[in-house]
């Protein structure tokens, strides 16, 4: 039997990245400050994790403005959603096999 651990995505090992993905899959788009509040991390930390997800084409970035203030929003890509669901399924299988 194939070991389900192989299906776990390395990118989602980080709790912060997993948190970002969880918030994005249930919302059309979330802006930087809302993510920061939800996950409660520093700006730099959040930005670097978002960068990783962006480089893997799991999230899309939209830079916009509200008045003069920049408003950067993030949304999940089709590929990101698929990878996240596969990761959840792998987690589920692992737990099932342990019991």
């Amino acid at each position, binding site marked *: 039997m194939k070991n389900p*651990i192989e299906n776990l995505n390395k990118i989602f090992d980080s*709790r912060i990245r*997993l*948190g970002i993905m*969880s*918030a994005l*899959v*249930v*919302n059309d788009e*979330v802006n930087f400050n*809302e993510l920061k*509040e*939800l*996950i*409660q991390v520093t700006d730099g930390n959040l930005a670097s994790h978002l960068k990783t997800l962006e480089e893997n084409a799991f999230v899309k970035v939209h830079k916009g403005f509200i008045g003069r203030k920049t408003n950067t929003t993030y949304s999940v890509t089709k590929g990101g959603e698929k990878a996240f669901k596969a990761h*959840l399924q792998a*987690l*589920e299988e*692992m*737990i099932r096999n*342990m*019991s």
Partner: protein
Amino acid sequence: MLSKNEQLDTLQDIKQMMERSSRFISLSGWSGIAAGVCALAGAAWAYSVIGPRADWRGATGKSPHLIDYATSVPLRDYMGSKLFIIAVFTFFAAFVLAFIFTYIRSKRNGLSIWSNSSRRLLINVGVPMLAGAVYLLKLIDVGAYGFIAPGCLIFYGLALVNGSKYTIGEVRYLGYGQIILGLINCWFIGYGLYFWAAGFGILHIIYGAMMWWKYERN
């Protein structure tokens, strides 16, 4: 290899993040209780004005036909009537108190009260409420006073059912309760004030107390 508990923790994290990011979860049980108490106070005040079983006659002193253009009072006159003022006053008192308790809870949880989720909740509750408000004003305009209390309950219930997707899920059951009371009230025109007090007063207090017990006790 990760232990089972760690895996379960991870799933718990994911679930919590999905909840936190998509629903407005700061809604406090105290808000429900406060709104219920306001409604009961408002109903008692209205009762002192109109007495038992005369919820439309008392407002205007006119005969109790369901729709009676001849004796109906123009909307602008009704605006100044005592009942209308009581209703508006009660609504604002309930809204402000409910807001305060929810504000306190969101601050305690370190969540912003103005977020994507609270905006979505307001829009989804607001649309049925506004449609209901316009419709009820029109009912007043034609003199169908007996249908105002059931209308309030039905539209408010629909607003809650609609909004429940964006906040604590149990709000849905409060909504069902209001709709059922409103519909039953349609066959007991004239007893609107009692249904109104049961729905806006007692159901709110029961709901608020249950939510407090479930989510905020500790």
